[in-house]
C-alpha cells in the first residue's frame, strides 16, 4: 500500500495502481473519454489530467502510477476550466440535436455537466445501418478510439481502424466500408465501450436504457460467461458482459452478447400441446401433464420401467438435471437416463475419469495465462468457445508457443508454432507418435513418471509401433512436424492442453482422450498451474447435467453406482440398476424394447448421427413427451405431448461450466405465456407419477441442498456463497473451503498413481473409395450454436449463411462447383444439401459440414460408427461424395 493525499485527504492505494484507480476507489469522479479499465491507458482525451504537487504540468491520472506521498488535486478551477475547454473543442463538431435525444451516454452527460452546447452538423452519409446488432452513427464519434483499442486488445481482431490524420482522422470498420461487410465477429465490445453511442446496440437504440439489470450466466457454450441482463417492464433489452467476472473479464461473444432474440421469437411455443389425430392441439397444463403422466405410467405398467427413457437437458440448470434423473430413477423406476454429453464429451469424462478419477477439466481457464505453451487438440475455440479462444489467441500473439492439432486451418492454427493436420479419424497414431518421440528422446518427466504413475513399461512397449514415420503416413502429417510438436510440448512447461470434439466424436474417442492424458502424465503436466487436460465443454451446463446424474451408469456427482448407491437409497429408497444410454435407448426403441421417452430441452433427432436410423427408431415409440421452448425437429416428428418450458432468462438455479465452476442463474423476466420452468414441470410430473412426497422442494436452493448431501465435492457450495463473481469451483467439500481450480496436485482420486494403459488403434469403418472419395468432417460455426434452436431464431442468421459446406477450392474446381452453389452430399447412410463455401482452411478431400441447420440436416449422412466404450457417435469422419445440384 502507498499513502497519498487526494485533495488534502490522506488515503491508501495499492502499489502498482494507477492514480485514476485510486481516485475512483475513493469516490473522486474525474471524467474520462478514452479510458476503459479493460484496456491499456491511452492518455489521449486528457480529461483525467490532475495536478500533482511538484510536477510542472498536470498528469493524466489514467497513466500515472500512484507513489508514496503524492499529493493530488483533482477539481481545481484551472483543471475544471481546462476540462470544459476540451469539451468545447469536441462540441464544435458534435451534432447539436443528438445529446438531448440520447442523454444517457457518458459524453452527453459531460456536455450537460460542463454546460457546453454542441454545435456541429449531422450528415446522413456517416450513418451505417447494415449490421443487425450494431447501429453506427459516426456523426457522434469523438475520436476517443476506444473501439479501436478494445477490438485489438480485448477481442484481438482489429476491425476498427483509424483512417486519415488531423481533424480528418476517423474510425472505419476495416476496408469494407460497411460494418456488415467487414470481418467483424460481432462481439459488441466496441458498442460496449463507446461513450457517445456512435456505435450502439440496435436494441438500445430502439428500446432505450434498460431499467433493471440482472446478473446471470450465459446459456450458450460451456465457458460460463457471466452476464448482466438488461430488461425494461418484463422485456429483454440488452445483454452486457459482467465486468468483474473471472471467466469472461468484461467480454462476450456474438452469441452471448446478442443471441437473445429467440426468447421472444414468434414461433416460441408458450402453451401446452397434445397431439390428437396427428395434429397438435393447445390444451391446459393439467390436461397436458395428465396426458404425459398417463403415457409414462401406461408404458411402465405394460412393458416395465425399462421401456421408458429419460433425457435431461444440458441447457437447463443443475437443479433441473438433478431432478430429471431423480424422477427417472425414483418416479419411473428406470435407469435409462442420459443427456447430450453422450454425443459430445462422454469420452472426455470417461477417459479422464478412468485415468485420473475425475471426469472433468483438471485445470481452469485462468491457467492459460500461466502456461508456457498451449496445445489445442481437435477444438476450434475462437469460434466455439470464443472467450477461451481469445485468451489463447492473446497469448499466442504475444509469442507463447502454440500447438494446434486439427485437420482444418482454424484461426488459432494460423497462429500456431506447429500445426498438425491429421486426416479425420487418425488421432490415435498421431498422439501415440508424439508419446513415442517424447519417450524415445528421453524428454519425459522422469521424477513425475516414477512417483505418480504406473504401467509405464507396458505402455512404452505399446508405443513402439508408432514411430513418427509410420504415423506420418497414416495421418497425412509430416514426421518432422510430429517430432517438433512432441519436443516443444515436452520441453516447454507448464503446458496447458485443451481438447474438443475432434478427439471425442470418433470411433476411438475414449482412447483418444486416454492417449492425451498419457501425454500429460509423461510430461508431468498435471496438478500444477498452467498445465492439465481440459475438455472444452459444449453447452452451458453439459458438465453439470452429466455431473448431476443424467448418466445411465452413474449417480449424482458422476459417482459410480457401487460407491454411492447406499447413500442414495438411504435418502430415496431402492433404485433401479444402471440403464441404457441414449444410443442404446435408440437401439432399444428400434427393437421395440423402449416404448416412451421424456425429453427435456434436447433436439436429439437433428443432432444424433445417422438420422434415418434415429427416425426409424423413434417412430416406433408409443409416445414422447417433449419439454422445450420450440417445436424442435424431434418434437415435430415424434412428440405427442409438448410442455412449454421457461428459458434461462426466466428461471433461477445454477450452471456448472467446463472448469467445474458453479455459478448462479437468475431470472430477469417472467416466463413467456404459460411456459414454466423445467423444475416446476418436474415437480408436477412427480405428483402425477405418485412420488410427490419425494419431491417436496420450495426453491431451486432446496434442490441444490439435496445435491450437496449426496455429493461431497459440492457440499461446501452453498447458495449464499455463490453471490460473488465467479461462484465456486468444486471440489469444495465444506463451507470454509475456497474451491479448487487445479485438480490432482498431490494425488489422484484413483490413488497415488495414475495408470498408463496400452492403446491399440482400431481404424474407422468409414473408408474413402472411388464412389465416396471425400472424408466429411462436421462441426459448428461462430454464429450458430449446436442444433441452432436458439441462434436460428436470432439475427445471427443475417451474419452468415445457414447451411454451409466448407470445401477446398481444388475439390470445387474438380467438381465444377462455384462458391455459394448448392451441392448434395451423399454417404452410404444418407444425403443432405448445403451451400458450398470455398476455403482453403479445409484440405482437399476433407470437406466440413456445419451441422446446426435443420435445413441442411447434416446428420442424415452420418453413419452408425460409435466409440465402443461410451457409444459417442463418429461425427467427424464419414466417406461421402459431392454432386452439383444442377448439372451443367
Amino acid at each position: 500500500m502507498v499513502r497519498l493525499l487526494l485533495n488534502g485527504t490522506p488515503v491508501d492505494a495499492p502499489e502498482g495502481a494507477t492514480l485514476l484507480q485510486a481516485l475512483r476507489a475513493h469516490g473522486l469522479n474525474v471524467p474520462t473519454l478514452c479510458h476503459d479499465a479493460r484496456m491499456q491507458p491511452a492518455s489521449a482525451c486528457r480529461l483525467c489530467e490532475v495536478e500533482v504537487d511538484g510536477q510542472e504540468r498536470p498528469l493524466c491520472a489514467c497513466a500515472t502510477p500512484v507513489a508514496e506521498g503524492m499529493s493530488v488535486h483533482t477539481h481545481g478551477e484551472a483543471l475544471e476550466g481546462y476540462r470544459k475547454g476540451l469539451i468545447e473543442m469536441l462540441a464544435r463538431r458534435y451534432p447539436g440535436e443528438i445529446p438531448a435525444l440520447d442523454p444517457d451516454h457518458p459524453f452527453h452527460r459531460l456536455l450537460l455537466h460542463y454546460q457546453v452546447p454542441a454545435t456541429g452538423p449531422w450528415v446522413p452519409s456517416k450513418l451505417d445501418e447494415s449490421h443487425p446488432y450494431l447501429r453506427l452513427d459516426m456523426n457522434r464519434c469523438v475520436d476517443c478510439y476506444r473501439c479501436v483499442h478494445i477490438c485489438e486488445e480485448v477481442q484481438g481482431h482489429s476491425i476498427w481502424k483509424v483512417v486519415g490524420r488531423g481533424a480528418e482522422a476517423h474510425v472505419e470498420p476495416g476496408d469494407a466500408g460497411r460494418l456488415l461487410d467487414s470481418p467483424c465477429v460481432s462481439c459488441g465490445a466496441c458498442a460496449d465501450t463507446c461513450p457517445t453511442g456512435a456505435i450502439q446496440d440496435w436494441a438500445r437504440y430502439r428500446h432505450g436504457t434498460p431499467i433493471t439489470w440482472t446478473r446471470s450466466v450465459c446459456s450458450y457454450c460451456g465457458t460460463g460467461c457471466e452476464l448482466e441482463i438488461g430488461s425494461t417492464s418484463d422485456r429483454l433489452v440488452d445483454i452486457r458482459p459482467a465486468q468483474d467476472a473471472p471467466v469472461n473479464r468484461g467480454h462476450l461473444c456474438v452469441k452471448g452478447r446478442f443471441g437473445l432474440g429467440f426468447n421472444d421469437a414468434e414461433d416460441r411455443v408458450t402453451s401446452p400441446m397434445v397431439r390428437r389425430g396427428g395434429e397438435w392441439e393447445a390444451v391446459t397444463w393439467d390436461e397436458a401433464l395428465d396426458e404425459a403422466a398417463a403415457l409414462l405410467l401406461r408404458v411402465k405398467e405394460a412393458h416395465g420401467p425399462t421401456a421408458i427413457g429419460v433425457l435431461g437437458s444440458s441447457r437447463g440448470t443443475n437443479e433441473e438435471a438433478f431432478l430429471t434423473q431423480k424422477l427417472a430413477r425414483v418416479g419411473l423406476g428406470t435407469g435409462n437416463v442420459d443427456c447430450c454429453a453422450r454425443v459430445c464429451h462422454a469420452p472426455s469424462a470417461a477417459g479422464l475419469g478412468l485415468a485420473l478419477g475425475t471426469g472433468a477439466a483438471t485445470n481452469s481457464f485462468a491457467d492459460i495465462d500461466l502456461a508456457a505453451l498451449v496445445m489445442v487438440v481437435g477444438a476450434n475455440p475462437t469460434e466455439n468457445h470464443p472467450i477461451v479462444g481469445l485468451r489463447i489467441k492473446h497469448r499466442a500473439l504475444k509469442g507463447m508457443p502454440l500447438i494446434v492439432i486439427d485437420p482444418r486451418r482454424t484461426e488459432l492454427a494460423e497462429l500456431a508454432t506447429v500445426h498438425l493436420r491429421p486426416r479425420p479419424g487418425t488421432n490415435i497414431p498421431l498422439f501415440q507418435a508424439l508419446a513415442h518421440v517424447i519417450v524415445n528422446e528421453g524428454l519425459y518427466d522422469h521424477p513425475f513418471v516414477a512417483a505418480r504413475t504406473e504401467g509405464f513399461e507396458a505402455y512404452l512397449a505399446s508405443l513402439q509401433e508408432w514411430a513418427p514415420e509410420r504415423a506420418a503416413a497414416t495421418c497425412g502429417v509430416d514426421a518432422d512436424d510430429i517430432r517438433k510438436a512432441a519436443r516443444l510440448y515436452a520441453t516447454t512447461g507448464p503446458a496447458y492442453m485443451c481438447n474438443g470434439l475432434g478427439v471425442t466424436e470418433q470411433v476411438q474417442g475414449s482412447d483418444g482422450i486416454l492417449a492425451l492424458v498419457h501425454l500429460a502424465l509423461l510430461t508431468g503436466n498435471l496438478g500444477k498451474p498452467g498445465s492439465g487436460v481440459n475438455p472444452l465443454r459444449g453447452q452451458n451446463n453439459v458438465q453439470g447435467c452429466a455431473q448431476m446424474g443424467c448418466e445411465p451408469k452413474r449417480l449424482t456427482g458422476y459417482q459410480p453406482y457401487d460407491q454411492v448407491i447406499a447413500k442414495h437409497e438411504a435418502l430415496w429408497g431402492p433404485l433401479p440398476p444402471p440403464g441404457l444410454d441414449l444410443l442404446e435407448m435408440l437401439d432399444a426403441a428400434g427393437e421395440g424394447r423402449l416404448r416412451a421417452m421424456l425429453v427435456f430441452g434436447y433436439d436429439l433427432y437433428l443432432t444424433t448421427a445417422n438420422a434415418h436410423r434415429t427416425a426409424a427408431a423413434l417412430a416406433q415409440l408409443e409416445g414422447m413427451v417433449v419439454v422445450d421452448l420450440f417445436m424442435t425437429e424431434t418434437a415435430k416428428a415424434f412428440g405427442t405431448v409438448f410442455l412449454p418450458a421457461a428459458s434461462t432468462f426466466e428461471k433461477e438455479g445454477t450452471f456448472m461450466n467446463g472448469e467445474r465452476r458453479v455459478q448462479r442463474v437468475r431470472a430477469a423476466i417472467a416466463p413467456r405465456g404459460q411456459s414454466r420452468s423445467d423444475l416446476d414441470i418436474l415437480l408436477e410430473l412427480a405428483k402425477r407419477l405418485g412420488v410427490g412426497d419425494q419431491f417436496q422442494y420450495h426453491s431451486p436452493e432446496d434442490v441444490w441442498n439435496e445435491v450437496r448431501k449426496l455429493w461431497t465435492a459440492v457440499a461446501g457450495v452453498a447458495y449464499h456463497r455463490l453471490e460473488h463473481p465467479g461462484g465456486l469451483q468444486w471440489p469444495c467439500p465444506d463451507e470454509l473451503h475456497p474451491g479448487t481450480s487445479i485438480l490432482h496436485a498431490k494425488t489422484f482420486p484413483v490413488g497415488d498413481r495414475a495408470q498408463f494403459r496400452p492403446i491399440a488403434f482400431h481404424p474407422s469403418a468409414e473408408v474413402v473409395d472411388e464412389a465416396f472419395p471425400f472424408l466429411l468432417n462436421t462441426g459448428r460455426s461462430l454464429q450458430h450454436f449446436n442444433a441452432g434452436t436458439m441462434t436460428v431464431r436470432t439475427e445471427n442468421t443475417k451474419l452468415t449463411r445457414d447451411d454451409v459446406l466448407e470445401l477446398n477450392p481444388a475439390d470445387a474446381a474438380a467438381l465444377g462447383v462455384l462458391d455459394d452453389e448448392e451441392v448434395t452430399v451423399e454417404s452410404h447412410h444418407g444425403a443432405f444439401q448445403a451451400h458450398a463455401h470455398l476455403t482453403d482452411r479445409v484440405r482437399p478431400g476433407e470437406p466440413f459440414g456445419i451441422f446446426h441447420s435443420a435445413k441442411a440436416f447434416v446428420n442424415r449422412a452420418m453413419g452408425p460408427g460409435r466409440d465402443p466404450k461410451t457409444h459417442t457417435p463418429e461425427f467427424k469422419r464419414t466417406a461421402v461424395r459431392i454432386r452439383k445440384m444442377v448439372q451443367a
Partner: protein
Amino acid sequence: MAIRTKHDPQSYTFAGFGSEKYPNLMLRGAGDLNNWTLDVYEQKHEGYVAMKQALKMEPVAVTEEVKTSGIRGRGGAGFPAGLKWSFMPKDTPERKITRYLVINGDEGEPGTFKDRAILEYNPHQLIEGCIIASYAMQANTCYVYIRGEFLWLIEKLELAIEQARAKGYLGKNILGSGFDLDIIVHRGAGAYICGEETALLNSLEGRRGEPRVKPPFPAAKGAFGQPTTINNVETIAAVPPIIRMGGAEYAKLGTTKNSGTRIFCISGHVKRPGLYELPLGLPLDFILNELAGGSSTGKKIKAVIPGGASAPVFSEAEFSTPMDFDSVRNAGSMAGSGGVIVLDEDTCMVQACLRLIRFYAHESCGQCTPCREGCNWMEMILHRIEHGEGTLEDLDVLASLTPRIAGRTLCALGDAACGPMESMLKKFRHEFEHHVTHKTCYVKGHELLAKVGAH
C-alpha cells in the same frame, strides 16, 4: 564547406570552412556526387578507421567516449547521446536481451534538410556510426527508418550497405570481432508524426504511426517490445569522428555543454541559403550576415525561426543569440533540428502562421483531443483572419488555445504547433489585429478576400 541549395553566380567561399576552426566532420566531400562510395570514403575520408578502432574497445568504453564528447542529439530534443546509450539494459547471466538501434531518418521538419545531405554524400559514415553505436549498446539489428520521399537515397543507402557487407563490415562476426550486425532500411510513408520516436517505432512495426504512452520509454520497451535506442542520422554520423579524434578532442569544438559541430539548414530571405556545418555557439546574426550573405531582398530581416518550423520565432531582439541548445532555449525558442528560416519584413506573419499551423493540423495523428481539435481550430481561425473574416474575439480564442494544447499531449507535436503560434501572436500581434480591424494586410496593404467579396 557549405552545400548550396541555389546556384549562386558569385561562388561563395569562406576561409573558415574545413579548417581547424570550422571543421567538416559530417559533410566531408559533400557536393561531389561520387563521394558516397566505399572506396572514396575509405581512401579520402578515413572511412571505417573509427569502426576498426571501436571494435577493439570494450563496448562500455565506446559509450564512455561518446559521453565524454558531450554530443547532444541532433534530432531536435538535444538529449545527450552517450547518456541515452547508457540507459540500454545490459545482459545478465540469467537473461540475454535483444536490443535494437533505430536511426531516425524521417527528416520532415519544415526548413530542415540536413540528413538527406548525409545520406546523399556520406552514407558510409552513417553506416560506420551505426556499427559503432550498435557495438557500444550490443544491438545486433539496426533499423534505419527513412522518409519515404527520399527514395533515391534509400536505394543509395542500400547499395552502400551492400558494399559494407561485401567488405565484411556487416553481417556475422565483423572483422573477427565476434560482433554481429545487420542494418535494415525501412521506408516511411510520408507522415511527419513518424519522426516522433515512438510513432516511428509503431510505423516500423507495421502499425499506424501514432505516438505511444510513455513510460515505458523505448530504452525499456521499444521496437517489437525490446529495449531500443533511437538516434538521429546526424547524431550517428558524428560518431565516427568522435571515436577517431577522441571524445575529449571533439568536446573542444563548440561550447561547453554544447559541443561539436552541427549542420545548419539556412533557408528563406538570405543571399546564400544552404547547409552549413558549424561549431555550436556562433551568433545567429554572424551566421546570417557573414556566412549566408544577409538579406536577399534588400529588405530588413524581420524574423527568424531558429530551429525548424516548431521553434518559436525570433524577432530582431534575439538575433544575436549564440546558436547552441542552451542559448536558444534561454532566448525563448529551441535549437531543434537546425533549420533556420529567415523572413524579411515583407513577409505577412498571419500568412506565415497559417501556413505553419495548417501543416501541424494536417500532420497531427489525431489521437489526443487537444492536438487534433486544437490545431484544427487554430487553423480555422487563422484562415478566417487571413481572409478578412476574423474578429478580435478570435484572437482571444487563439491565445486561449495554446495553453490547452502545449504540454498536454502524448508527444511534442502539440507543442510544436504552439511554438510558432504563440510567439507570432505575441511578437507580431499588431499584424493579426490589423487583419481583423482593417480587413487589409498590414505588410502588403492589399485588401483581404472578405472585403473584396470573393468568397
